[in-house]
């Protein structure tokens, strides 16, 4: 029910802050998405979409954080074997 899916903003239309909308690509499938809650979204950004509305812009740097953490975990493990 709280399912929300990331997609890429392909185009934006409209000026009115309540009805401004984007065409968002979900792995190639395009859907119209309301941008009222994410006015900072620009073409090329990834946004998190729930029931037709974008709820957040996805932060690419934060998205890397978990994989960075995993790399940090690998290092001491390698030393143990040395």
């Amino acid at each position, binding site marked *: *029910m709280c399912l929300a899916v990331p997609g890429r903003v392909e185009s934006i239309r409209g000026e009115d802050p309540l009805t401004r909308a984007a065409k968002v690509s979900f792995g190639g499938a395009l859907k119209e998405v309301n941008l009222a*809650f*994410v*006015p900072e979204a620009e073409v090329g950004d*990834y946004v998190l979409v729930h*029931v*037709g509305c974008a*709820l957040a812009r*996805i932060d690419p740097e934060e998205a890397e954080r978990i994989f960075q953490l995993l790399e940090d975990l690998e290092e001491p493990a390698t030393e143990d074997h040395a």
Partner: protein
Amino acid sequence: MKYVDEYREKRPAQRLAEEIARSVTRPWTIMEVCGGQTHAIVKNGLDQLLPPEITLVHGPGCPVCVTPVELIDKAIAIASRPEAILCSFGDMLRVPGSSRDLFAAKSSGADVRIVYSPLVALQVARDNPGREVVFFAVGFETTAPANALAVYQARNEKLSNFSLLVSHVLVPPAMEAILSSPGNRVQGFLAAGHVCTVMGASEYELIASRHQVPIVITGFEPVDILAGILMCVRQLESRCSRVENQYSRVVRQEGNPRAQEIIREVFRVTDRKWRGIGEIPRSGLGLSDEYAEFDAERRFNLGDTSVEESAECLSGLVLQGLKKPSECPAFGTRCTPEHPLGATMVSSEGACAAYYRYRR
């Protein structure tokens, strides 16, 4: 798909599971709040990757499951009127009311339409000026902004044939209720990442300090969930009780201020009954006085009713993390997704349906 596929890869998931096993020294019980997380855990067998010390219990975060049977009956009553079009998310249609479900009402001629967004229901209202269009507004804080936006736009457009049947619930009061229950065994939480996308972290900081429990705001993919469990286990092992944010690519500390603003504009906090659990004070949203004309319960003058539920169904205990679905005597025999006794067997996010589907 970017931001999905990389979080489903095996190697990082296995690495995180190993790290959890390395970090744990004693038994811990952790609740994932959201039904979407429950589904991901059972579907991907994440619980089976964990060391035996970690017990995951499944929380009440399935709006379909906790919508009271009386509201389902009201939706059916509205849908059965010739002038009405009832629009709903698809997973509400099979939830049993006291005598039948919305799907049965649809088969016998009621105009019930499945929509993926309240904004689509709003368009149905624009396209059908001679009909009363009602959107069945269920959900947690994640869904509230979109539902509020639909009503706000309807008022702006002076659209008089659109209304909401509201059954909105809030996560923090349910977590408080679970922690305050005498039988509580939850020692740490994975908080629902998409609820926090809207609401931010501050409500959870109060709960973490009041009840001395770690709360990790967690995403929905396997790598997210295992990372959330690892963060929670590390806090438990070091006797910490902070709010941490695993899902930082999406969740900001303050949440989404614009989404919160429209929730405050359109809704007010109310007491709400949770199916299987009972009434929890200040645990839901209803339309504020200023938007009362968009309240379908008032518009259709639906009185309050009370329905007794199947005594055999343990869904209330399952939703509070007190029982596992497989501990219910009716599970998989008298209660199946085709013939559910309770809503946790209906919704794909209900714990019972997830256990049944993935054969636990």
